[in-house]
């Protein structure tokens, strides 16, 4: 099956007063139709920057190289017209912070409607009708009244639903969800995730879910990409990665998840040390200073991403487990 979104060798750099800071390196990913890929990693691992680059939404001081194709359209070229023709229609994104991601002075109906007017050529009345359907689709209560409200009149969960409605307005083939639940409280998080999973299933949409929460990934993703220090360190089917992680970082990440079945006050497992500063990435494997299995080689030679048996890992000493059930 051909990929709907195909990213090759994406690199993102920021020029700052202190020099050039690499944020993402050699990032490649193929997204199949109807598939959901989870992108996990700590803050600063380059998860969000990779996909903001794909959307052409990076800050002005960023430079991007590589290729990202949505169908026939190259997104990383400098053709703003071509990019604007697919953003908001075939390729949509929802963001981390629903409280600040909606324009404060525009009514909900206008914010949902404008991409319909832009990409589908709907009239204002048609766009209003469609906006109402979309609000109902994302399970906003009292949808009719919400249409004419301003963002500040809505709760955080409600605003994220409106963001999802905006993203879904033109039936995108690919939806990028950048930490869509991080800013919401736990019960709302579960509702939004269930909604996203349901929408993805019903519409056969491909989805990229950027998160630092492996639990979220386990719930809806088909594949997982684990990032560290701006690079992919492990990549594979959800079951393989969660049950038999090969990269020590993935394993440490999994071990640091609190478990509901562990009774008592077992201390939370944490990964020692700090996430690396992208300005001063360690030589060799970026994870080696925090890795329990690190050897001399890890400090000198950066491991390549080795692809084998449907999964990939970038480690000199991957953890091998024969059977995982």
């Amino acid at each position: 099956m051909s990929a709907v979104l195909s990213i090759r060798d994406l690199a993102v750099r920021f020029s700052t007063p202190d020099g050039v800071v690499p944020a993402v390196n050699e990032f490649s990913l193929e997204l199949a139709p109807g598939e959901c890929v989870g992108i996990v990693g700590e803050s600063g691992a380059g998860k969000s920057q990779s996909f903001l680059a794909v959307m052409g939404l990076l800050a002005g001081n960023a430079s991007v190289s590589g290729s990202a194709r949505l169908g026939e359209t190259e997104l990383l070229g400098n053709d703003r017209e071509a990019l604007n023709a697919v953003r908001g229609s075939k390729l949509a994104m929802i963001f981390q912070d629903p409280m600040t991601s909606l324009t404060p002075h525009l009514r909900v109906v206008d914010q949902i409607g404008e991409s319909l007017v832009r990409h589908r050529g709907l009239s204002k009345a048609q766009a209003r009708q469609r906006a109402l359907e979309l609000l109902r689709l994302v399970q906003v209560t009292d949808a009719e009244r919400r249409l004419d409200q301003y963002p500040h009149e809505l709760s955080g969960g409600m605003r994220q639903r409106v963001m999802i409605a905006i993203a879904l307005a033109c039936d995108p083939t690919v939806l990028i969800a950048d930490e869509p639940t991080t800013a919401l409280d736990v019960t709302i998080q579960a509702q939004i995730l269930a909604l996203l999973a349901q929408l993805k299933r019903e519409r056969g949409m491909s989805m990229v879910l950027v998160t630092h929460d492996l639990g979220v990934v386990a719930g809806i993703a088909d594949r997982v990409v684990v990032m560290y220090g701006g690079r992919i360190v492990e990549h594979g089917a959800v079951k393989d990665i969660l049950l038999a992680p090969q990269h020590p970082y993935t394993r440490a990440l999994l071990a640091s998840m609190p478990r509901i079945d562990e009774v008592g006050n077992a201390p939370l497992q944490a990964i020692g040390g700090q996430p690396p500063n992208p300005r001063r990435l360690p030589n060799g494997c970026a994870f080696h200073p925090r890795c329990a299995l690190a050897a001399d080689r890890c400090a000198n030679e950066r491991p390549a991403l080795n692809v084998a048996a449907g999964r990939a890992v970038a480690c000199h000493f991957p953890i091998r487990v024969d059977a995982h059930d």
Partner: protein
Amino acid sequence: MLRYALRRIFGVIPTLFIIIALSFFVIRLAPGGPFDEDQTLPPEVKANLEAAYGLDKPLPEQFVRYLGGLAQGDFGPSYKFKDFTVTELIAQGLPVSLMLGLSAVLLALLVGIPLGTLAALRQNSPTDYGIMAVAVLGIALPSFVTGPLFALIFGLHLRWFPVAGWEAGEYRYLVLPVITLSLPVIAYIARLTRGSLLEVLRTNFVRTARAKGLPERQVILRHALRPALLPVVSYLGPATAFVITGSLVVETVFGLPGSGRYLVQGAINRDYTLVMGMIVVYGGLTLTLNLLADLLYGWLDPRVRYD
């Protein structure tokens, strides 16, 4: 929005009252009176004059009488321009001053906002630096320097506009004064717009608008510019005050028969009613423009309407 507007409008009345009361008593603190100047009048004549104008009454009583007149739209007689009432004097000068001031504010908005927007969109380019350099000059140069300079260049040398003077209905006499008066305001508004637009362009909601694939023009005009104009609108109040005081200078430089001179002459002559009349009119004007700014603010940002 209507309730917000009404609340704002009723808020103006007590403010205006405080302005009137304060200035009424403060003027009287200044030494001397309207009939102390020039030739010394015989005490009996002066007493007669003061009695005729009610100046012999206790101050609180004078104040109440003044307010009573004001409520009926009567600003009282001028003590110095003896054949005129204050209303007549203001009616002579105010239209010219109003036209000058309002045109200057309008021009400042029409030029300042697009300039600031252009500078922000071309941040750190020669266009940006050029606009900002001119803006700094515009703020730094006082109008008693730029005014004569413009009169010299565009009036004397190029002969595009009259150097000075006024004829009713001849708007070309207003061109140079309006430009002179609005230049610092243009500069300030351009700087305000640039700074706040740059900030708004970095917000998450502008990112959302871009993610919708909207053309950049629509992102700016529909999503970014309205919140970016909030500081400009807040500045409208102070801008009005600036234009009012600035018009005193500009009217003098260009020989315009505005009302600004009455404020100065009235204050020097202790022409209490004339000064009070000017204060009431200019105070009311400033409050009205501030009110307008408040209402605009409520329109620009729906969150302001609910407090």
